[in-house]
């Protein structure tokens, strides 16, 4: 396992896809949240201001980070999903998949190593998003920095980012079975549309891919309550996708 981890970590560290995704999500999500917050709080006129105000769940840090929460719930799933799809689909697209056969390190171990380094990256990404969000909030003058309030809201943001990132691990299976990135991109589109429909029909709590978005609006007026069982579906789905993907890698052939 150590050999596979070292190789996969090196590949992830050196990839431009990971670097671009980390920078974009780390900077863009808090920046967008701050932009929307300022538009909403300053009572601007127009569709954007109305929309931003509708999503505001409070004032000050709670309102600002609440907006970042809602953006992160979808954006991290998409951004991390692209990275996961690339990590699992690249050898198929590059036609180097055969190189991963007939090795001392079994393919299932390589797949598991890919998931492990991606999980570490997702946690690092969540910390970066949380840290940058606090920094932007301070620089943008969102409000007084009460440790308990900001700490609680930032922790929630990082939990949402990690949850969305863990759900994006399912794209490893889509990219493996589809033998490339594009099937995973298609799967992400279908999942996001399905999550919207599930929320509209009031069953979003039981659709794991809608859970991060519902955590983001939890406590807001009209938002559904989430049970621990519903939240627990997120790690279960992530673990299940790791299991089926590693099984696929163990059994598959070069075609």
């Amino acid at each position, binding site marked *: 396992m150590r050999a596979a981890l070292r190789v996969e970590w090196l590949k992830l560290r050196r990839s431009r896809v990971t670097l671009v995704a980390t920078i974009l999500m780390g900077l863009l999500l808090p920046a967008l949240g701050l932009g929307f917050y300022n538009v909403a709080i300053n009572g601007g006129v127009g569709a954007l201001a109305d929309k931003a105000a509708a999503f505001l769940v409070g004032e000050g840090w709670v309102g600002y980070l609440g907006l970042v929460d809602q953006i992160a719930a979808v954006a991290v799933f998409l951004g991390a999903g692209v990275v996961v799809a690339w990590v699992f689909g690249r050898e198929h697209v590059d036609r180097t998949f055969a190189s*991963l056969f007939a090795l001392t390190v079994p393919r299932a171990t390589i797949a598991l190593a890919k998931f492990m380094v991606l999980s570490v990256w997702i946690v690092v990404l969540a910390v970066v998003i949380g840290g940058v969000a606090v920094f932007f909030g301070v620089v943008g003058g969102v409000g007084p920095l009460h440790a308990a309030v900001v700490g609680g809201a930032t922790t929630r943001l990082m939990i949402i980012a990690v949850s969305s990132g863990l759900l994006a691990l399912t794209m490893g299976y889509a990219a493996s079975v589809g033998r490339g990135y594009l099937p995973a991109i298609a799967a992400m589109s279908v999942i996001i549309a399905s999550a919207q429909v599930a929320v509209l029909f009031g069953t979003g709590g039981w659709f794991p891919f809608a859970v991060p978005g519902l955590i983001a609006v939890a406590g807001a007026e009209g938002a559904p309550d989430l049970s621990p069982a519903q939240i627990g579906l997120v790690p279960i789905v992530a673990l299940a996708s790791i299991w089926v993907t590693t099984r696929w890698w163990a059994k598959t052939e070069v075609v």
Partner: protein
Amino acid sequence: MTLPLATEDVRRRFGTEKAVDGVDVGVAAGEIHAVVGLNGAGKTTLMRLLLGMLRPDAGRATVLGHDSHRAPPQTWSRVGHLIETPFAYPELTVRENVAAAALLHGHDRRHDSGVDRVIDGFELGHWADRRASTLSSGNRQRLGLASALVHDPSVVVLDEPANSLDPAGVVFVRDLLTDFADRGVAVFVSSHHLDQLARVAHRITVMHRGRVVGTLDPDGVDLEQRFFDLVHRYDLEMGTRS
């Protein structure tokens, strides 16, 4: 005696296409066994069967005495292979690629000096710290060969190893194969260019339409003509010549 590489009546279909249709081949230690054939003859599929990349529909493919598709991981520490696309991650340097291949073949950091030795041996020293994405296709092929052979295997399977190489590279590969065989390594190699390999092979098997249709004497004359005679005779016998 168990041969390092062997197939017994091995068969594999893709849909209705018989990619490999009842093939028996073997490679002894210290032997260079070349398989030649036209595109689509079944050479690559045969090699994939020997390396456990495909499961046979019938028959057996074995490596070091184990059925290839369920050989234990340690078996592969003695096998080196390059099938079609070289092991060359574009974002990694030449040295990092070879070191990664060594790790996946069961070698640890203590062999870092061995990685440099292999890089020098494959005449890649000048590019050692450059990313693989910047290499020419010929040097990428050299990198693929270095990655395939960094762990000093006793069984080698190479599919078209001279692809993309310049004349000097082709000579390099021929010398490499000869050196391996001299050291007792079993070498199974494919090519669709007879001249590239005939000079060093101990045995040449001709594949066509998934079957072994004959053998060529590596020391014989006019190999190309004899190759086409075998292929055309098979097509005439089967009534498949187009």
